[in-house]
C-alpha cells in the first residue's frame, strides 16, 4: 500500500517535471534515446548536452520563424 502510494507520487512528480521542461521547449530525453535505439539502432545518438543545445537552437532559431509564445 505504502509502496504503491510512493510509486504514484513519483509518477506524478516526473510528469510535472516533464511538463515544466516541455514548457520551455525541451522534450523528454529518455524518450528521444529510446526512439533512436528502437528505430535507428546503427546511427549515433546525441548526448544530453547536444540534445539540449539542439532543442534550444530549434526553439529560438530563426529557421522556423515561428512565434512560440503569445502576447
Amino acid at each position, binding site marked *: 500500500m505504502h509502496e504503491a502510494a510512493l510509486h504514484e507520487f513519483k509518477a506524478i512528480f516526473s510528469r510535472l517535471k516533464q*511538463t515544466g521542461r516541455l514548457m*520551455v521547449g525541451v522534450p*523528454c530525453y529518455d524518450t528521444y534515446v529510446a526512439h533512436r535505439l528502437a528505430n535507428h539502432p546503427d546511427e549515433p545518438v546525441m548526448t544530453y*548536452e547536444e540534445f539540449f*543545445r539542439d532543442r534550444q537552437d530549434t*526553439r529560438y532559431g530563426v529557421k522556423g520563424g515561428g512565434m512560440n509564445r503569445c502576447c
Partner: protein
Amino acid sequence: MTRSIQTLGWIAVTLALTFAFGWIALNRGETINALWIVVAAVCVALLAYRFYSLFIARTVLQLDPRRATPAVRYNDGLDYVPTNKYVLFGHHFAAIAGAGPLVGPVLAAQLGYLPGTLWILVGVVFAGAVQDFIVLFISMRRDGRSLGDMIRSEMGQVAGVIAMFGVLLIMIILLAVLALVVVKALAHSPWGSFTVFATIPIAMLMGVYTRYLRPGRIGEMSVIGFIALIAAIYFGQIVSENPTAAEMFTFSGETLALTIIGYGFVASVLPVWLLLAPRDYLSTFLKIGTILGLALGILFVMPDLQMPAVSRFVDGTGPVFSGALFPFLFITIACGAVSGFHSLIASGTTPKMVENEDQARLIGYGSMLMESFVAIMALIAACVLEPGLYFAMNSPASLIGTTPEQAAQVISSWGFVITPDMLTQTAADVGEGTILSRAGGAPTLAVGMAHILSGAIGGKAMMAFWYHFAILFEALFILTTVDAGTRVCRFMIQDLLGTFVPVMKRTDSWMANVVATALAVTAWGYFLYQGVVDPLGGINTLWPLFGISNQMLAAIALILCTVVLFKMKRQRYAWVTMVPTAWLLICTLTAGWQKLFHPNPAIGFLSHAGKFSDALAAGTILAPAKTVEEMNRIIFNDYVDAVLCGLFIAVVLSMVVYGILAIRKALANPNVTTREVGGDEGARQAARLASRGARHA
C-alpha cells in the same frame, strides 16, 4: 447508476451557475465577493467543455482516435513526439498565456466588472476556444503546418501573402504596446527599474551556467535564478531608499523607451543561449507560478469587488480608453476571450506532439478555457481596488493633473470618492513616489495583486514587495517577448525583402540580419516612442490598435476554419465558426471605422489630426504641444495610425473575399476538396506501430 450520478452532477453545476449569476444580479449596488465571479466562470467552463466542445469534437470535426497524428507518423523524438495529454496541455497553456489576458481586462474594468466578465465568458466559449481547437485540429491533419502555410494551400497564394503581411503588422503593434506597458510601469520608479535591469546580468549568468557550467540543468538554473530575482527585488528597495542610488535609477518615459529600443536591437542579435533562453525559462516558470499564486490568493482571501457592476463610462467617455462599450469592450479584451495570436501557437509546435486526435479537445479547447480564468483573475485584481484609486492610476495626466490633490478632486467629481491622502498612502504602501497615471495595466494589476497576496502572506508590510514582484514578473516576460518577437519580425522582413533583394533572404548573412533587425526595431520603436510622448498616455491610442489587429487575426483564422469545414462538406455545422467570425468582423470593422472617422477627436485619428491642423492654421498651439514642430509631429502620427488602421481593415476585408471565393468553389465541387494528409495510410501505419509496441511490451 453512474450515468444518473453524472446527470445529477451536471444539474448541480448548472444550479451553481444559476445561483452565482443570480447572486451577482440581485446584489447590484452592493459590494459582492469575487468568489461569485470565480464560481460563475468555473461553471461556465465546465458546462462548455462537457457539452459544446464535445459537440464540436464528435459532430463537427469528427475526431478520429484511430487516425495517426503527425507525432505518430513522423516520430523523431525531437519535434514530433507523441506526448502525454496533460504534459502537452501544460506546454500549450504556457505558450498561450502571456501579458495580453492580464492587461486587457484591467483596462476594461473602467466599464465595471460585469461587461468584461460576460464578454470573457461568452467570448471564450463560442469564439476563443473554438478557434484554438479547430486551428489545432486542421493543423494536426496537415502535418502540423503553420497558419500561413495552411491559408496558402486552402485559400490561395495571394491570400497567404496578405495574411502574413497582416501578421507582420500585428507583431509590430504588439511589440510596441507591450514595451509601452513596461515603460509605463518603470518610469520614475527606481525600485522597479533597478529590479528589471538586474534581470539582464542574472539571465546572462544563468545562460553561461546552462551552456558551460552545468549544461542543460534547467531545474537547478531556475531555482538559482529565482533566488537571484528575489534578491534583486530586495536590493531594489535599498536602492530606492538611498537618494543618490535612487536618482541613478530614476528614468523618464522617453529615456526608458530609447533604452528598450536599444535593448531590443542588441538582445535579438546576441546568441540565444546567452540572454533569450535563460530569461525565457525564468519568465515561463515565474508566469505559471504567479498565475497559480494569484488563483490561490483569490480563493483564500476572498476579496470584495469595489468597482460597480456597470460604471457610468459605458457611454464612451471613460478616461482609460475612449469609445463606447460597443465595439470597444470587445477589442479591449482580446486575449482571454478570443485571441488571434493563438492561431499561430495552435499551428506551431503543439500539433506536432498530439498523441491522439481525441486529445485535441482537451489541449485546444481546454487550454483556452484556462486562459479565460487568467483574464477573469486580472479583472478581479483590478476590481478589488477602490474605484477612485483605479481611475487615478489609469487616467492620463492631461485629465487628472499631476498632484494627488488635483487627481483626487477630478476623480471625486466623477463620482468615485477618493482623498489625496489615500493616493499618497497607497503610493507609500507599495514603495513608489507616485501612482498617478500609471496606465498600461501592469501597475494596476500589481497593486491589485499586492492587495490580494498581502492579505494572504505578510500583510501590509509585504505590500511593497508583492507590488514589485508583480511588476518584475510582467516586465520579465514582456521583455522576453520583445526579444523573441523582434527575431520573428526580422525573419519575416528578411523573407519579404528577399523576394526583391535576394541577399536579404540569407539568414546566415550578418549584414542581412543586422539590416532586418534594425528595420524591425525601428518599426516597433517608432510606435513605442510615439506612445510615450502621447498626451493621452499612449495606451489610449495603441491598445485599441493592438486589440483590433489581434481580433482581426482571429477573424482570419476563423475564416480559414470555415473554408475547411465547407471543403470537408460539413457546411451544416459551419455556423460554429461563422457566428464568431461574423461577430469579430462586426466589432473590429466598426471599431476600425470609428478609430478612423469618428468625429470625436479622442476616438477618431483623422478628426484628431483635423483639430490640430485647424489650430495650426489659426496660429494657435494646442496642449500638450509647445511648438509648431510638436504640432506637426502629432498630426503626422495621427496619419500614421490612420494608415495602419486602414491597412488592418483592408487585410481583413480581402481575407473575407478570398474566403467567400474558396467557399463558393468548395460548394460547386461535389467532392470533399480539403487537403488533409495521413488518412487511411496513416491509420495502417499507426496500427503497425501499435502492434509492434505491443510485442515489445
